[in-house]
């Protein structure tokens, strides 16, 4: 992987729900090792954009490229074919995703949540998967909670397990969909700390967030979205201290 080259490319992405246009002709690119934060008011389309990246939402038009390969479609000679669910699954493994509502598997312990996909999808040996999972649990500070069920964990702990679960697939990029929005305020910090550490280790991350301090300190690139378009983007300190657009200014005035 060439550091500095675009790892993820989004070209002319458009998505509607019924008659409601959610995303209009989005172009963006994410370089390997970069942290991109997407901010904006609710309903601006930022979560939908993130969900289009791994085709949890299938865009109406436009293409997402990961490492130059289009997501969800495949060339067969001169014709373009939509991938089957199971073909898409192979691509999705490379894009870890962390949800607002954690979505841990409630019938499995923290450890079982983490080893599930490595064993079932990547056919790793159980003993190896457990070994790696324990390293990841260490990393998110939850080694001693390995055998707890999700409902026995706090929201912050659940989200950290969810991050470890995604990391276990060794993804090329991590997508975070408002990872701290469902948390009590005092639990936000522990999740952001894990994300900060990931960023420092050079993980490529796309983060939809309302945490402006996190965006300012950690992001390499900040994108402000409103009304389904990218209004402006750039280095976070510049965008935050010197917004060019009136919409960005009014949004920042409300949240900062």
């Amino acid at each position, binding site marked *: 992987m060439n550091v500095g080259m675009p790892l993820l490319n989004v070209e002319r992405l458009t998505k509607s729900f019924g008659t409601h246009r959610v995303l209009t002709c989005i172009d963006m690119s994410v370089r390997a090792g970069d942290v991109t934060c997407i901010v904006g008011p609710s309903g601006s389309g930022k979560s939908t954009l993130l969900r289009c990246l*791994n085709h*949890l939402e299938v865009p109406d038009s436009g293409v997402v490229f990961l490492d130059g390969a289009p997501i969800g479609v495949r060339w067969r000679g001169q014709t373009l074919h939509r991938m089957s*669910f*199971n073909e898409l*699954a*192979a691509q*999705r*493994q490379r*894009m*870890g*995703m962390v*949800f607002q*509502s954690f*979505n*841990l*598997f*409630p*019938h499995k312990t923290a450890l079982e949540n983490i080893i*599930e*996909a490595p064993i*079932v*999808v*990547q056919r790793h040996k159980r003993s190896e998967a457990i070994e790696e999972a324990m390293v990841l649990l260490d990393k998110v500070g939850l080694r001693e909670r390995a055998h707890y069920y999700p409902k026995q964990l706090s929201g912050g702990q659940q989200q950290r397990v*969810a991050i470890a*679960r*995604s990391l276990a*697939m060794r993804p090329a990029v991590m*997508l975070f969909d408002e990872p701290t929005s469902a948390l009590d305020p005092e639990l936000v910090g522990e999740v952001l700390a894990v994300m900060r550490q990931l960023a420092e280790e050079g993980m490529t991350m796309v983060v939809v967030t309302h945490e402006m301090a996190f965006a300012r300190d950690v992001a390499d690139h900040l994108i402000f979205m409103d009304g389904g378009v990218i209004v402006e983007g750039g280095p976070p300190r510049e965008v935050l201290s010197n917004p060019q657009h009136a919409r960005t200014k009014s949004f920042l005035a409300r949240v900062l």
Partner: protein
Amino acid sequence: MAQNLKTLPERPDIHTIQPVPERHPSRWIGGVVLLVIVFLFVRLLVTNENLHWDVVSRYMFSPEILAGLGRTLLLTFIAMVLGLAIGVVLAIMRLSQNPVFQMASWVWIWFFRGVPPLVQLIFWYNLALLIPTVSLGIPFGPQLWSASMNALITPFSAAVLGLALTESAYAAEMIRAGIQAVSTGQTEAAATLGMSKAQTLRRIVLPQALKIVVPPIGNDTISMLKFTSLVSVLALPDLLYSAQMIYSRTYETIPLLIVATIWYLVLSTILTLVEHYIEHRMNDGRPLQVTLILASLFRTGFWGARRAEVSP
């Protein structure tokens, strides 16, 4: 003011005494009335000579009754297992994106929920009148195997068919509801981990759906136990028909019906306990004290919150 206080007797300090609890005279009156009725009923049971308790106890464990009991249990078990297996397939078909599968499943459920099990039992038993021989082969091609329907349809196989197919329709709807109750967040999480549809269904969705459908499956099992008594029309010696065969010889009708009643009650009580036990194991995995399950048995259905009530 000071005058007033002197004329009234001194009240104790409000902080030092407990208030007298609220009285419930209506509960006492209602309770007494009901106890009187219960007493009269019990007296009727004990003193009415037509009940012949000695006959009841004589036949309670007779080999004929026990054999019938065994058949009832076997029939319940086979019909439930078969019905649930078909039900899972039907539920998945119903939720599939293939309109033909959806439609086929819908028609099946519509048919087997709409036709009374008794009618079905008689119908299956007489299937040979409709289709005299069955054969297995390549359609429009050579025949590999064939048999006379009369040989295949015994009272037992007709009973299994009728009961299992009825059950499959109900099970399908329960399981479909269970699958749909698993949040889309779960399937999305599985998808982002690269799991295939089959893996997601088998490892993530079905285990969670199963937990949701355990209580209704338990109820259905108890219903099935009772529905099996319908097979007496096919002259299949289940618990009820065994009792009937005895009293048609001895004319001890009521005592033998009492024997059957007691056995049905015993079995359905055991099944209820088993269901509660499974439900609790699935809820928190902790082993449960028997007293707690027994307590839940009596509370069940009263306020509709049995799961909350039994948890310690």
